[in-house]
């Protein structure tokens, strides 16, 4: 089964793009990512630029609205995600608990809908 692990981190973890890159290359995230790859369960994943670089578009009352900033105005913001392939939710949660964001912010785990080819 495939699961997406979404890393929600507080703003201190990504003050600007350079810091994001530094964090992504940094010890914790790098070590976590390598552990996923070496376990042979990594399907994909990306680190994102910080939330202030986001643009949100929505239709309100038939009119388009474009706003600066992320969709959800929460303290923790989506900083990146992993997609992993593991036998079950129990295993996915084991890996999610190791995610550095589980300490600094929050981690959301969701099963991915698989398309039959």
């Amino acid at each position: 089964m495939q699961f997406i692990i979404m890393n929600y981190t507080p703003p201190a973890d990504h003050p600007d793009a350079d810091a994001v890159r530094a964090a992504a290359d940094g010890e914790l995230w790098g070590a976590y990512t390598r552990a996923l790859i070496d376990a042979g369960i990594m399907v994909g994943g990306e680190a994102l630029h910080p939330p202030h670089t986001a643009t949100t578009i929505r239709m309100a009352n038939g009119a388009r609205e474009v706003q600066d900033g992320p969709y959800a105005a929460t303290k923790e913001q989506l900083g990146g995600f992993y997609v992993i392939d593991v036998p079950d939710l129990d295993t996915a949660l084991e890996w999610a608990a190791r995610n550095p964001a589980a300490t600094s912010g929050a981690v959301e785990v969701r099963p991915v809908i698989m398309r039959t080819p």
Partner: protein
Amino acid sequence: MSDAVRAVERVARLSYGRLVARLAARAGSLADAEDALSDALARALETWPRTGVPDNPEAWLTRTARNRAIDRARSGLLPVAYEQDLTRMAEERSQTPAPTMDPRLPLMFVCAHPAIDPSLRAPLMLQAVLGLDARRMASVFLMPPGTLGQRLTRVKAKIESTAIPFELPEGRDFEARMTDVLNAIYGAYVVGYNGMPAGDPKAATLAQEALWLVSLLADGFPQAAEAHGLFALMLFAEARRPARTDASTGALVPLEEQDTTLWDGGMLGDAETALRNAARRPSLGRYQLEASIQAVHAARARTGATDWDALALLYAGLVEIAPTVGAFTGHAAVLCETEGPAAALTALDAIPEAARASYQPWWATRAHVLARHGDIAAALEAFDRAIGLSDDPAARIYLSGRKARLLQS
């Protein structure tokens, strides 16, 4: 909080498992017993503030719960057979002498029955014997609360449908079943101790609940050496909890570097007593060996040094009778001290790849051994992997510190 509310809570806390066990033993259903008891507890909260707390609150609750079960059977909520059973048992009750054995003991054997999925035995036991709810246990067992609740409900239905008896197993069966009970309790302790961040108060609570379960078992079965061995093992580990993390950095402190003055001396004494109780019986098991290993580490508080040769002997015995990846890894760490890093590396590499690939302690031990061996590049890589596999921030801080020191050297 009124006295009556406190009395209900105290009875619920102290007697929950005993009451559930008695009710379930009569009706053969854990789920119905828990339902009936929670009805009775609700009834107590209504009644006791008006009537005062009865002289024997436990007997009051048992009677009320049984009556509730019979009411429900009459109103057609329960199968007829169950009703007949309850009526018959209610009749027998007046003639049956009070059982001398703690009814929670057979209940623990039911919860660790071979027909039950091993991963559910510990949470089931904590729920049935101590009344912990799935929501509280979910974060410790790393399961979604809803999923854990559903799994426990299904397990209780299985106990009922397969008619697992609420009795102690007899004869040759007893020892194997006892091992299952001990493994389940130890499982609860380990997730409370290692599976949770070292500073998390939920972890400490669960570890103490598990300690309580094993003390019941050791009390109830003075002849069961392994029960005393596990009790000792858990007391040794619990006594060292205050020294496990560095107060200033938050980093984990490995056993051999812990400040022994922070260890709980009273608890260490209890652990040594429990281990002596185990040693009086003519059998040697996994938990006694693990407790003996802990006793050697604990002796450092008196002698000021760790007796690595004694540890090597004990680990050699442990990997013989309990060849787990944890035991092999611990053995390798000790070999690094007694025979040097090359021997330790050989021992580490002998562990099958599949068992060690994502096992954090294996990588942490390997990093330590490689650093001692002078293979810095490989050690740094192993430190990284151990950091990536840690779910405890205290372990990450410790490993990052070790790695930084290695880079500077």
